[in-house]
């Protein structure tokens, strides 16, 4: 079995030497992860983050951006651990999306 994220030595094209300015939501995701894995909170580990990303599976792994993989993993792990429930997450996501629509008018 050769897992999808384990890509050392596979063939690939030229390295596209790009970088991008991180968007606020990406920094927020990174900050959330650092806080959750830090000594003050210790809610999850970086190992769980990585495992969650790897378990997203081959197709999604390549389709999603780096921080999209992170937030997917973090959210799944928090649900798994019972830190947040699917119900309250769904309601909060609806609310933030509604606020976005308000603010974008």
């Amino acid at each position, binding site marked *: 079995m050769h897992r999808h994220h384990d890509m050392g030595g596979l063939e690939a094209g030229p390295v596209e030497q790009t970088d991008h300015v991180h968007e606020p939501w990406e920094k927020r995701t990174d900050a959330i992860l650092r806080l959750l894995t830090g000594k*003050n909170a210790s809610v999850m580990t970086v190992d769980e983050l990585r495992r969650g990303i790897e378990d997203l599976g081959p197709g999604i792994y390549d389709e999603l951006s780096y921080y999209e993989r992170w937030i997917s993993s973090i959210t799944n792990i928090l649900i798994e651990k019972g830190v947040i429930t699917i119900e309250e997450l769904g309601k909060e996501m609806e609310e933030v999306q509604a606020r*976005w629509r308000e603010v974008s008018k």
Partner: protein
Amino acid sequence: MSDSHSHDHDDWPYPHPKQPDTEDSEFTDYMAMAAAVGNLLIEKNIISRDDLRGMIESIDSKSPADGAKAVARAWVDPEFKSRLLEDVVAAAGELGLDAGTIPIRAVENTPEVHNVIVCTLCSCYPRMLLGLPPDWYKSRAYRSRVVREPREVLREFGTEISNDVEVRVHDSTADLRYMVIPMRPERTEDLNEEELAALVNRDSMIGVTTAGK
């Protein structure tokens, strides 16, 4: 839950309404998750709003300039260099730099060995000393190819390593990160530490380039 909590709009992860030209007129599910998860964690007192803001500021405050300071000091002070090679976090602390808690190992470029860093399995990088890694470091192409054909990848970055020098690739697989101490460029004897640090960029501390370019 719905009406009683107030949101500080600075925390919202989407662009300020007065900035119409930001890239995303779209608010994706992932952005919604980032917003929602943060809000729920704050509501549950698992993290605080101040913690979140402070951590974002901390992320913004880290840059390759911190690593460059340590490299410049290592170039001028051989005993500091020994301490840097022994323990980067402790040595960086001497310079007033908070390089975090995850151990960082410095590997030194010499006339015999050129080092280059990768994380083939994910994107491990000494973020607390160098800031966030560039997109290319996390890309499929870099992670796949630099372990197998490092000289070709270095060539893409404009770096040619001569045949009598060993190219040594370090794959960061454990909770131990790496930084490269590039070689001090020639004819820099008259430069002070600040000027030397200016010669050290991020890519030279990853190992895809040499210092002074």
